[in-house]
Structures are given as structure tokens and as C-alpha cells.
């Protein structure tokens, strides 16, 4: 009977395609928008990824890495003086504009790191030599900057090319692999002292201190000691699981800078509402199209379902047929939608635009939602079929 149910479904090509298309669009919208949202959120903490350090120390009111309040230069020494800290280095991080050789201006994310230790330097160099960062006017750019900072569209920045930051020369000595910044500007690393020369002077310029705990001291213990002894806010910098993101509460604020940064964007920007709206639209479109089309499919087949009922098919058998039909289109639509999302992901990851990151739970969550839509559609049909009198089949 289930094979028969599928033949009835596939035989009605127009409705079958409409159902599959509705569910595929819903799947695509929900999966793609969620992944773009997660990708965008991962970009908000890209500085933490691109300036690898186990602990970030910032001013006590700071909640996220892209909006730091300046510290006193002496705060580096104060952090170093904490007994559980092995080393500490200053960091400058800020948005600046560069002037290209062709006269165009571009936004960059300027990172200044300690010239002696090079702590906070990019983890993976694609070209060039990190040590040359100590040479005068030297900068390292990320792979996005290779295209963005080129003289003209289609060109690529090579090692030895130069541009200006605040009318001062910046010569590329290396290219690094990096995560894109939230603002879309490429990352540019230089030494801390040179960064202060590039940037218009202010009384306090230090944005953060990065440090690591002594051997045998846990990260949690180290940040607790730093907070206690300096009064500054210390955060752990490590990848967070979905559970860690969700376990953050106002009563128990996170000590992970990644979690704190993402939550700041969730709470203080319209980004989640914007993406959430699209995801809900995807859900509603899928629900409306699928339920309406499936219900109309059931209504059109009511005469045949009535005949089956008259011939001795039980309500249970007919309900199972409807569930199989609904779930079949659900799985096919989901597969196509996810394939479309994969195609989008392929393009996005290749071009590094737009942001795309799909956590493992997203495909499963979308599958659950799609199957929920299908179950709802099937229930509408089941409701109708269970009320069907087999005798109606004799009415012409």
C-alpha cells in the first residue's frame, strides 16, 4: 500500500513538484540564513582568532573585542606582575583607512603587536617572513587584503608592494591566512609602536593586553587572579561549543571572550532579528505551501481514498499512506534545499563572501522543522480522511 501511496504522489506531477519546491525553498532559507547568521557571528570574533592568545585583558566595562576601551600603557606591566601570568604583551586593534597607490581609500583592521615577542602575530603565514615585520614600515596583510588592497580590480598585492596609512608608508612583507573581519576590511598586522605612529595620537592608545598563564595554572585561575589583582577584565580566548554559548546567563556571565562578543552582537544589534525574520519567513512559506498543496492533493484524491476505504483499507492504512507521502516530499525537498545551501556555501567559502558557517546541529534542526511541517500537512489530510464516510464513494 505504501508503494501505491508513493505512485499516487509521484503521479500527480504538478502537486508533487509544488510540494518539493515549497519544502526545498523553506529548507534553503532556514539553513542558508542560519548559516550566514552563524558565519557573521563568527566574523564578529575574528580578531580573537587572528590574534591568538589564551587570555585577553581589557578595560573593566568591555564586553566585546571590536569595541575596546583604551588602557594605560602601564597596565601591561600590571598584568605581567600577576604571579600566575607567564607573559603579557600589548595589543593595538582598530579600524583605519589606507590610501592605495591609485588614490583609492580602503578600510582595514589594524593590529599592532609586540615587536620583541611578536605575540599575537598571525598563526599561519602564506607568503613572506614574519620576522621582517620588525623592519621599518613593514606590515603583514591577510589573504583578503591581497585583492582588496590591490591597485586596481583584478590585480593582486605582492610582497614588496606599498600603500599609505595616515600618509605614512606601509610595505607588505608577508601575507597571512586569516578569518575575515566583521567590518569586511582586511587585517593588517604591524608592530605595536608602529601602529601608534600610524594612528592619530590619543592619551591612551593601548586597546588590550594578551597574556598566557604560567605552566600548571589553569586559564580560569589566571583570569581570576588578573581580575582580582589588577581590577581589569580578563577573558579566556578559546572556541566555544553551542552549549557554552547557550549557557551564558546574566546571573552567570561568561568568561570566554568569544561567547561574550557574540552575545553582545545578538543583544545590541538588529542582526538576529533580521536573520530570524527570514528564517521564520522560510518556515511560514514552507508551512503554507506544503500544507495547502498537500491538503489540496488529499482533497483531489478524496474519491480514490474513499474507494480504498470502501474496499476495506483501514483508517490506519490510509493515515500511514498520507504520512509516507508527506515525509517523502519532505525528505526530497529537504535534500534539494540542503544541496542548494551546499552550492551557496561552496561559492561563499570560495569567495570568502558572504559569511557562512553551519554548525553541526543546523541541518538536523532544519530537518526536524521540515518533518514537522510535513507532519502538520499529513495531519490535515488525516483529519479529513478519518472523517471520510466510505459510503460517499457511491455518491456521483
Amino acid at each position, binding site marked *: 500500500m505504501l508503494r501505491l501511496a508513493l505512485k499516487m504522489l509521484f503521479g500527480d506531477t504538478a502537486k508533487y513538484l509544488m510540494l518539493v519546491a515549497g519544502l526545498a525553498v523553506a529548507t534553503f532559507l532556514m539553513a542558508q540564513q542560519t548559516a550566514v547568521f552563524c558565519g557573521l557571528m563568527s566574523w564578529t570574533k575574528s580578531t580573537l582568532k587572528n590574534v591568538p592568545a589564551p587570555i585577553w585583558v581589557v578595560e573593566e566595562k568591555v564586553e566585546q573585542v571590536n569595541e575596546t576601551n583604551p588602557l594605560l600603557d602601564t597596565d601591561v606591566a600590571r598584568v605581567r606582575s600577576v604571579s600566575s601570568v607567564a607573559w603579557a604583551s600589548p595589543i593595538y586593534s582598530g579600524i583605519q583607512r589606507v590610501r592605495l597607490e591609485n588614490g583609492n581609500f580602503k578600510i582595514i583592521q589594524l593590529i599592532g603587536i609586540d615587536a620583541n615577542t611578536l605575540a599575537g602575530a598571525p598563526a599561519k603565514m602564506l607568503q613572506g617572513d614574519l620576522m621582517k615585520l620588525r623592519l621599518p614600515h613593514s606590515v603583514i596583510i591577510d589573504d583578503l587584503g591581497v585583492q582588496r588592497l590591490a591597485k586596481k580590480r583584478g590585480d593582486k598585492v605582492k610582497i614588496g608592494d606599498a600603500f599609505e596609512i595616515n600618509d605614512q608608508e606601509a610595505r607588505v612583507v608577508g601575507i597571512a591566512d586569516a578569518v575575515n573581519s566583521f567590518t569586511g576590511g582586511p587585517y593588517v598586522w604591524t608592530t605595536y609602536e608602529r601602529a601608534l605612529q600610524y594612528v592619530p595620537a590619543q592619551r591612551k592608545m593601548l586597546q588590550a593586553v594578551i597574556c598566557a598563564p604560567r605552566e600548571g595554572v589553569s586559564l580560569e585561575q589566571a583570569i581570576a587572579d588578573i581580575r582580582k589583582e589588577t581590577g581589569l577584565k580578563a577573558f579566556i580566548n578559546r572556541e566555544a561549543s553551542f552549549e557554552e554559548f547557550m549557557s551564558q546567563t546574566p546571573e552567570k556571565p561568561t568568561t570566554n571572550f568569544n561567547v561574550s562578543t557574540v552575545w553582545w552582537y545578538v543583544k545590541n544589534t538588529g542582526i538576529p532579528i533580521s536573520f530570524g525574520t527570514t528564517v521564520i519567513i522560510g518556515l511560514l512559506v514552507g508551512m503554507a505551501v506544503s500544507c495547502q498543496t498537500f491538503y489540496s492533493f488529499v482533497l483531489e484524491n478524496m*474519491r*480514490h481514498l474513499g*474507494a*480504498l*476505504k470502501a*474496499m*476495506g483499507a483501514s483508517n490506519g492504512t490510509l493515515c500511514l499512506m498520507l504520512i509516507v507521502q508527506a515525509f517523502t516530499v519532505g525528505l526530497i525537498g529537504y535534500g534539494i534545499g540542503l544541496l542548494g545551501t551546499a552550492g551557496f556555501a561552496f561559492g561563499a567559502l570560495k569567495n570568502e563572501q558572504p559569511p557562512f558557517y553551519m554548525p553541526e546541529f543546523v541541518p538536523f534542526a532544519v530537518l526536524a522543522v521540515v518533518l514537522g511541517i510535513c507532519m502538520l500537512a499529513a495531519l490535515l489530510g488525516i483529519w479529513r480522511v478519518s472523517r471520510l464516510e*466510505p459510503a460517499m464513494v457511491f455518491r456521483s
Partner: protein
Amino acid sequence: MTNDESKQLAARVRGISKSFGDGEARIKVLKGIDLDVRRGDITMLVGPSGCGKTTLISIIAGTLAADEGELNVFGHDLRQMSKAAITRFRAHHIGFIFQAFNLIPTLTCAENVSVPLLIQGLSAHKAEKRAREVLAQVGMADQIKRRPSQLSGGQQQRVAIARALVHEPKLIICDEPTAALDAKNGHVVMELFEHVARGQDRAVLIVTHDNRIFHHANRIAGMDDGQILEVHDVDADHPPPEHLHAPERL
């Protein structure tokens, strides 16, 4: 009635009544119907539109519950059986032929015919094998892969007959089997029907307006206003009474 006579009955209907609607809108459609449907016979129910023929066959087929009366079909007291038991009874003992054929358009002829066997739980392979045999009996062996839309009305009704016979039911219920067919096809279908459907242990109950097929019946029951007014045995020596040819004059 003796026990032997009772055993010869396919369906025994006594005092069956049925009403539809509530309150002042309540209409009594069947008013204490008595009818015997004999095994081996083709019994036709004739009468004007709205006289209750379809309601009566729906009750005998177990697709509609009567309000009162007795109903025994092949020894089963349908009035005492649960809904699930009646559904199982229909699946095993009743074959249906509908006015509009009710073939599923997306299935082939063989698949359509195999439906009653699939409902009984037979495997698709065995069901289709049996369906092909029955389609051959009704002269449709070369059409098994075709869909209903690719067949003429007469051919579709042959497929419907095959579907009604495939699970070897004891009672075949037909609702206006020739209404959608022209005279020639109607005659061919009834000839075929008489040839393959009639059996010693099987009864055929037909509701029809089509007086061209009355001579295929062994018995004709004339109905009007929810009652059976007359029952005639028909054979070569006793043709259907003339007045039945104009049912509105019953």
C-alpha cells in the same frame, strides 16, 4: 424460511431503516426494508432517483450503518460487528464496481486491479501476478501497463470488474455499472460481467437505471420512497415486467 433456504441467501435484510439529518430536517430514506439476495443470482435494484437504492446497497456493503433492522451477509450479522471488523469483512468478502469506475489515474491497470489484494496484505509481486490473470479473464491482458486515462470507458469498466473480482469476494456490489457507457459497451460489459462474476457461491447486487440490462438479472427488486414495492424473478420465460422499464411509474 427453512435453514436450507437461509443458507442459500447471500444477504438477508429485515426491517432496515435509515434516516439522515437532525430535527425537522431529518429525512427517513429507508423505511423498513426487507430483501433477500440469493447466492448465484444477479439481483438488480431499480427505482427512481432518490428512492434509497444507493443507501440500501451502502448498508448491505457495510459502508453505512443502518439505524434499525437486521442485516446478515453470508452468515455475518453486520449490525453486531465493530467498525474495524466490518472494514476487514469488506476487504475479504465484498467487491465494488462504481459508476465512475474510481480507478486511480496514476496507477497502471495491473496496479489498480491489485489494490484489494494489497489491502488484504498480499505482497505487491503476488498481487500483480494475480491481477494479470484476472485482467486476462476480462480480455485486458494486453493493456496491463496502461493507465486508466489511456483506456476507453468500456475498457475502464472491464478493469473495474477485474478489480472487483481479483480477491474472489462473495458479494459484488455494483452502482450503475453501465451508466457511463454507450449501449454497445454496456451490453459487452454486462455479458462479461455475467460470464465472469456470476458464481454458485457468489451474489451480485446491482443498482441501475439502465433498463437495457434488465434481462441480465435473475431477480429485480423495484424500489420507491424508501420501500421495496415488488420483487420479480426473471428468466427466459419470465421477462422483466414492462412497468419496470419506466421506474418513475413504479
